[in-house]
């Protein structure tokens, strides 16, 4: 293996002579005490190398135009290893500046700038200047807010130089403003011009170091060129490698843990943005604050740094002190300490004075998340980051919480024409969102969630897109189509129609639609027009075709046409429908629409006698159903009396017909009911056959009347019976022989019925006492009646009736009287039968004989 390498090495040496050159370089003997402090130079070189390769690889994807710079940086960020490469580049830039500073410091302290090495120092300063130039030009390339505005400030500083400032600024910017020309020239300077110069100068710098040899140590007596048994390779190289690896690891750490920052995309119209300078410009930034006035900026930012630079530049030529030992160079060391202190103090002050970003509370952070999730930023900017359609929310804190919540829940309450959707949230979430809004101020930085996927065209980021889009859309409606479906327009326009659609749009839209149908299709699907126009399209054949549509959808015509429009043509002229076969078919579907041209009476011209098709021969039989269901509107031809003339009663039945009116009709003309209703239809309500069957009056009604008189009562007033039944013609039942006896039983429960003829108290009138016996008759009152007029009882009751209750143990009450033995004679006169009921026929005799009392014989 080693033999092979040797062979290749020999071949290369033979061809190029490179191997010996490299060996010479590597074998350089090192002076004494050269070691770790001297790695700084090569550390700078390694840092530059890292910048070179990371930058070169990023160039594969980066595009230096304002419309693509930011999105290509975002693209790099989301590629595999992309954020790592970019992070290395970002932190590598800081590292390079730091290491250059440290290298300068080391060279200064070691006094390695002194004669004869002045030129190396000068070239080193040039390299320092180039490093700052790298920083400044590279800063602009991401084209985010910080990049843009820092460049505006930086070029403005160049512009404050008297006389040449304006020209210088325009030259740097490539125009008046920082824009596309600035970006492209900064890019070219950064990736081509500066690297070329830097590499050339580095080579020259290192060559010069080798030429003069590494500075010997500052020993007492300062012996020159004491050879040390150490060579550049591998001793110094090893140290360099260690430091290089350490550097790389540190950079990797920062790149992985923090990542290069990326602010929102540059917004040239946002004047509220506060650019903060990079840390190495902070001292200047702070100094400027103390230098007001017309030339303050010039002095602070140009004059003082230039003087400093000049001082450093002239240092090796001014400093004639041959000593390199720090102890022997009090002035130099003193100046160093002074400069360092001033720069540090101003730097720290500068750092403190830059306003900090607004920190949100925990609740505010939750609200921020809601804000992002709900995509409020698509319309609302916060400090100019976000959409450009709605007001900037940085001032949201001006409103109190209640107003904010109301605004969110009901935006139309504040502005009728707003396109802001109402935000419905549960109270807890709403409170966090409101809290977030109230914590916003001008120092809040909204971090946009980077989009993955197709981005908006650059036109959509322009300031006036919200207003301008409607002009773009009118010019070419299909422009929107390539990205947006019609429904997209509806997200805003559902809540707010385009301004054109506000006044009489239905009437006038046809002009726009005929000129440019694509205009409608930008928002509406094709079927939207069809909803009206499927039938209503006034195409060439509309005159022929409109009749059918007009017949059915008269109200659609009225959207545009007044009624007279029809008459313009149709006076005298027949509609298309009145062609062949019209006479046959004209009635189907009713007579809606005939009245546009014809008077009502027009139909009668023919229809006196002429019937519609439906009126077939058996129409009288079957017309009931259709008439009831409304299939055939009888009233279209016939007046209401027409039905009555056949039906004998009003058709259809009026409201109260069931309850009362039908009785009269039914009576007057029972056959009228039977025309439609079956015979038993009446029975269902009436409970008996109606009308009364034959022989009802003569014979059969009696039985029904007897059984259920209330059924008669449904129709007949009580006096009705009296119409036929009187003294001479009592009811049949009264003809029975035993009616006198039997009527009692039959009358039971039907007293009102008897009363119909006999009157209310007719029983009493006949019976001489209330009939029927009132309640409690048996117990008490009857005894009085019996005592007074026992013959009344005898009318109904046989004498034996008394014995049912009265016996030896329970005689009638009258017998309790003390004087009954005496008074009974008078009482029993003529009532012997009654006595006999208990006492037997011979009862009187038995008693009287016994007691020797004479019985006075009663009459009969």
């Amino acid at each position, binding site marked *: 293996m080693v033999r092979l390498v040797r062979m290749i090495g020999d071949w290369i040496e033979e061809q190029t002579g490179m*191997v010996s050159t490299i060996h010479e370089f590597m074998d350089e003997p090192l002076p004494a005490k050269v070691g770790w402090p001297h790695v700084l130079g090569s550390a700078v070189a390694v840092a530059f190398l890292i910048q070179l390769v990371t930058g070169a690889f990023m160039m594969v994807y980066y595009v230096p135009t304002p419309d693509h710079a930011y999105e290509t940086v*975002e693209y790099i960020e989301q590629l595999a*290893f992309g954020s790592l490469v970019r992070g290395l580049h970002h932190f590598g830039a800081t590292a390079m500046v730091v290491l250059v500073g440290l290298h300068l410091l080391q060279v200064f302290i070691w006094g390695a700038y002194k004669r004869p090495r002045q030129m190396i120092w000068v070239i080193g300063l040039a390299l320092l200047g180039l490093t700052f130039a790298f920083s400044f030009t590279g800063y602009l390339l991401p084209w985010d807010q910080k990049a843009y505005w820092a460049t505006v400030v930086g070029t403005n500083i160049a512009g404050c130089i008297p006389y040449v400032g304006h020209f210088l600024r325009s030259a740097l910017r490539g125009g008046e403003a920082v824009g596309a020309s600035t970006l492209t020239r900064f890019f070219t300077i950064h990736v081509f011009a500066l690297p070329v110069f830097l590499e050339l100068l580095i080579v020259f710098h290192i060559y010069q170091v080798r030429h003069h040899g590494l500075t010997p140590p500052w020993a007492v007596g300062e012996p020159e060129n004491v050879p040390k048994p150490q060579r550049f*390779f591998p001793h110094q190289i*090893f140290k360099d*490698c260690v430091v290089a690896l350490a550097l790389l*690891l540190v950079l990797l750490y920062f790149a992985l843990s923090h990542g290069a920052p990326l602010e929102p995309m540059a917004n040239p119209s946002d004047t509220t943005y506060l650019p903060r300078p990079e840390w190495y410009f902070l001292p200047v930034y702070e100094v400027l604050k103390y230098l007001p006035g017309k030339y303050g900026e010039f002095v602070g930012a140009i004059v003082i740094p230039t003087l400093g630079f000049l001082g450093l530049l002239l240092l090796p030529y001014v400093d004639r002190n041959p000593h390199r030992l720090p102890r022997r160079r009090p002035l130099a060391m003193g100046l160093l300490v002074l400069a360092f202190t001033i720069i540090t103090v101003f730097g720290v002050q500068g750092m403190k004075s830059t306003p900090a970003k607004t920190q949100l509370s925990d609740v505010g952070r939750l609200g921020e998340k809601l804000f992002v999730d709900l995509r409020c930023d698509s319309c609302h900017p916060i400090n100019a980051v976000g959409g450009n359609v709605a007001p900037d929310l940085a001032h949201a804190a001006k409103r109190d919480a209640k107003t904010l919540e109301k605004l969110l829940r009901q935006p139309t309450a504040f502005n009728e024409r707003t396109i802001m959707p109402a935000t419905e949230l549960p109270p807890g979430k709403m409170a966090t969102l409101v809290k977030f809004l109230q914590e916003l101020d001008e120092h809040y930085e909204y971090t946009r969630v980077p989009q993955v996927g*197709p981005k908006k065209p650059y036109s959509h980021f322009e300031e006036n897109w919200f207003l301008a889009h409607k002009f773009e859309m009118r010019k070419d409606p299909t422009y929107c189509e*390539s990205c947006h479906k019609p429904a997209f327009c509806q997200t805003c326009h559902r809540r707010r129609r385009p301004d054109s659609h506000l006044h009489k749009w239905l009437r006038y839209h046809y002009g726009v639609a005929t000129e440019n149908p694509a205009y409608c299709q930008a928002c509406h699907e094709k079927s939207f027009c069809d909803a009206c126009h499927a039938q209503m399209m006034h195409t060439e054949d509309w005159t022929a075709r409109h009749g059918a549509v007009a017949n059915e959808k008269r109200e659609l015509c009225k959207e545009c046409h007044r009624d007279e429009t029809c008459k313009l043509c149709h006076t005298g002229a027949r509609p298309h429908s009145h062609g062949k076969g019209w006479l046959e078919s004209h009635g189907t579907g009713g007579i809606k629409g005939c009245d546009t041209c014809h008077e009502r009476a027009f139909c009668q011209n023919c229809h006196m006698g002429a019937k519609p098709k439906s009126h077939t021969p058996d129409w009288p039989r079957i017309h009931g159903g259709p008439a009831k269901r409304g299939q055939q509107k009888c009233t279209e031809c016939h007046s209401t009396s027409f039905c009555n003339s056949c039906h004998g009663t009003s058709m259809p039945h009026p409201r109260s017909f069931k309850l009362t009116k039908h009785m009269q009709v039914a009576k007057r003309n029972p056959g009228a009911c039977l025309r439609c209703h079956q015979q038993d239809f009446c029975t269902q309500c009436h409970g008996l056959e109606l009308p009364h069957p034959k022989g009802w009056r003569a014979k059969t009604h009696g039985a029904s009347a007897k059984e259920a008189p209330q059924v008669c009562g449904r129709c007949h007033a009580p006096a009705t019976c009296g119409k036929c039944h009187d003294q001479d013609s009592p009811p049949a039942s009264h003809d029975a022989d035993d009616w006198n006896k039997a009527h009692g039983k039959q009358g039971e429960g039907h007293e009102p019925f008897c009363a119909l003829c006999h009157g209310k108290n007719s029983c009493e009138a006949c019976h001489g006492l209330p009939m029927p016996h009132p309640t409690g008759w048996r117990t008490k009152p009857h005894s009085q009646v019996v005592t007074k007029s026992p013959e009344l009882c005898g009318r109904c009751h046989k004498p034996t009736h008394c014995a049912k209750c009265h016996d030896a143990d329970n005689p009638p009450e009258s017998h309790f009287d003390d004087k009954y033995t005496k008074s009974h004679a008078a009482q029993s006169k003529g009532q012997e039968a009654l006595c006999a009921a208990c006492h037997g026929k011979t009862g009187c005799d038995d008693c009287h004989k016994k007691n020797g009392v004479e019985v006075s014989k009663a009459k009969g």
Partner: protein
Amino acid sequence: MPDHRATESFEDALTDTPSRRAFLAYASGALSLVIGGLLAIPLVGFVLAPVFRPRKSRWVQLGHVADLPRGIPTKLVYSYPTTDGWLSKVARGTVYALTEDGKSYTVLSNLCPHAGCGVRWDEQKEYFQCPCHDGRFDRHGKVTGGPPPHGLKEFAHKVEGGSLLVELEEGA
């Protein structure tokens, strides 16, 4: 040729042992390798990342199925927003859709598999004609003449809500 390797010239004056030098040399080499690797791996991965991006496919709407005539391959032009690397653009293309019965469809690419020219359906002659090298395909995309090695590419498709959709590869 003189030996330019430096070891001989100072060996006698050295107090340093060869083993220490060798260790440092190898250590330097090793460190350099590590540094190189730490830089090379991310950088090479970074530059090759788009090559290994997974191929995504998406469903693209072509048009209403009601508008398609039966039995004739119908040219349908589609467009959808997409990204070309970092660039947002609108991808456009053409496919031909054929249906006999309104239920099953064939969606063919219009790119000739021979050299990528766009084919065209000829109404009169009733075949797809490629203008570049006279390749011909029948209504179903099968080769009927000319140099194409195989037929027109067929796409996966579906009908949803009255619209015909086709599955296209992003970037294709």
